[in-house]
């Protein structure tokens, strides 16, 4: 994946999770961060730091993003448990 398509999410402990932008944008807040008109630091560097979110939580969040994306298009077909 190219650098422009990814974004780095950094947990409180400093762990870096590199995921695709598409996955990250599942969250409205992150979407706003990255697409807000002003030149905020996050959008410029492509990194978002969460000083108050622990690594384990952030990991779960990233998993949720991917699960959501996977089943975003299909309606009722077998959706795996998250």
């Amino acid at each position, binding site marked *: 994946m190219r650098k422009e398509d990814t974004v780095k999410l950094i947990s409180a402990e400093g762990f870096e999770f590199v995921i695709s932008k598409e996955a990250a944008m599942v969250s409205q*807040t992150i979407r*706003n*961060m990255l697409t*807000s*008109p*002003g*030149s905020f*630091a*996050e959008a410029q560097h492509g990194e978002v730091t*969460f000083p108050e979110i622990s690594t384990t939580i952030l990991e779960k969040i990233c998993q949720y993003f991917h699960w959501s994306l996977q089943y975003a298009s299909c309606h009722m077909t077998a959706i795996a448990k998250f």
Partner: protein
Amino acid sequence: MSNQKKRNFQIEAFKHRVVVDPKYADKTWKVLEHAIHEIYNHNASGLSFEELYRNAYNMVLHKFGEKLYSGLVSTMTSHLKEISKSIEAAQGESFLEELNRKWNDHNKALQMIRDILMYMDRTYIPSNHKTPVHELGLNLWRDNIIHSSKIQSRLLNTLLELVHRERTGEVIDRGLMRNIIKMLMDLGSAVYQEDFEKHFLEVSAEFYKVESQKFIECCDCGEYLKKAEKRLNEEIERVTHYLDAKSEIKITSVVEKEMIANHMPRLVHMENSGLVNMLLDDKYEDLGRMYNLFRRVPNGLLTIREVMTSHLRETGKQLVTDPERLKDPVEFVQRLLDEKDKYDSIINKAFSNDKTFQNALTNSFEYFINLNARSPEFISLFVDDKLRKGLKGVSEEDVEIILDKVMMLFRYLQEKDVFEKYYKQHLAKRLLSGKTVSDDAERSLIVKLKTECGYQFTSKLEGMFTDMKTSQDTMQGFYASHPELGEGPTLVVQVLTTGSWPTQPSSTCNLPSEMSALCEKFRSYYLGTHTGRRLSWQTNMGNADMKATFGKGQKHELNVSTYQMCVLMLFNNAERLSYKEIEQATEIPAPELKRCLQSMACVKGKNVLRKEPMSKDIGEEDAFFVNDKFSSKFYKVKIGTVVAQKESEPEKQETRQRVEEDRKPQIEAALVRIMKSRRVLDHNNLISEVTKQLQQRFLPNPTEIKKRIESLIERDFLERDNVDRKLYRYLA
């Protein structure tokens, strides 16, 4: 699951960093306030979205939403006040540009702020019924900038000034206009309407009032309409380019009112260029433009229609009562057809086939065609002319077209039964002299009349055609059974059924012996095959072809009427004959005899007889000789063909009388029909019912109807009610 398990199930509270710091709220707010300042100063890069978002989130979470919100309001307000000053300071041209630039900045900043404060927007604001951030930003802009005393009127005036400049032909920055107007629209339709649109419409009305006054003084109708159309299109274009689409209908109605509705009567009646002139000159483009423009205003089309109708009626009335025109019936009808064609094409090309205009045309024609009582006669004469010679060499489709047009005029007639009478007469003459150009055309017209008026109207006419056919067969049979007659003069007999043909009283006439013998043979032949019938010879309607040799040996074939034949045959046995002698021998009634002698002796080119004295009129003492010096460049000479002409006064009176006579039984039949089904009816209703039933054929005169009612009462068909004298009862 057992109850015990439920009891042991506990949910731990989420462990979050709880802040006890009382100044926490102030500190957090300071961070956010600083951020907002930076955003407004275009210094936002480097700020951490996450940090700001988190701070706002925390404030709301810890119930400091109120502080956040009011802080937001005051910060934004103070920034906007500064912005307002900088806009006010802008000079002249750059005022709008500055406003536009600051507006864009504000929007961008607003979006950033909203993104950061998203959490508050979603939770604190709805539950406390506050205005959301975005809307708040717009409202603050509106209150502090647009409605600021120094900016409000300046903005409006600048915008109106630019519109005015564009109207007078200058080019303005439409993009900038569009952005400013869009700003007003974004602030709410109330702002757009109150702060701009309302004044725009007022100023526009003023502008167009003045302009229309100026134009109408100096332009003629066509030019004025062009200008009005141009302005209208300009305004529509203006709206698409930089105004709210909803304004289109409002501004167009302003233009329509000022430029068109207020000046409608003056335009229509303008001397030398108004509606009437356009109609006369077939100015399709101008008329089309007038139609399109007037259609937009109330009563616009009505005005056009009224003027057109009254003009048409006037012209029609003149056409129809002009004594010059009345001399030539064919010309008369042709002029009517031309007029109809003209207006049909105007309605088609300029008024887009509008039905109401078609109806107005029909009404006008009905009105003036019936002003002249001789219209039915003239139309019949027109058809006669066409069927005799006018349609020679014309293609079948064109024939249909002409006949259809004639049918249109026929429909306008009120007195259709008069037309029927004349048509029968003219048809009889055509058939008997064999002068019809096309049998198909004749039949086609009969079919059209039948479709229009029903079988009754045309049954007699069809009978006439049948008689002609039958007579042909009879003649064949006659000559087949009498082969010895092949040597003598050839007789052609048309046997006419009395009921179908127009009755003419036949007068006495002594046929020459050769002819009378032949006629008797025919009579006995005919009565042999058809018992119970009576034949009477109509000598006034026949014609004959005779071979004649004159003094210098010149031979000619003469086509003459039966009367003329009788007279000429006398000269086989005599050199000189006096008027009295001729009268005695032929027993032809005096007026007829005089006429036929005149046509043979006094007309140049047809003077096969010589008269002494050479006067124009036939005197009782005149003498007649064969004109040995007769010459004509044609071998075949036609004398005295019976052409259908328009009637002389006495003839006209006679026909009119016969028509009136015919109407009486028809009225009576209608009365009986109505009373039979209604049993009891009052006078006024009876009159209107009868009129309605008969209007297909003619318009009955109420006095005449009354007379017929009286007659029916006398004959015990009806009776008057004893109590109510206006009520009639049917007597079975």
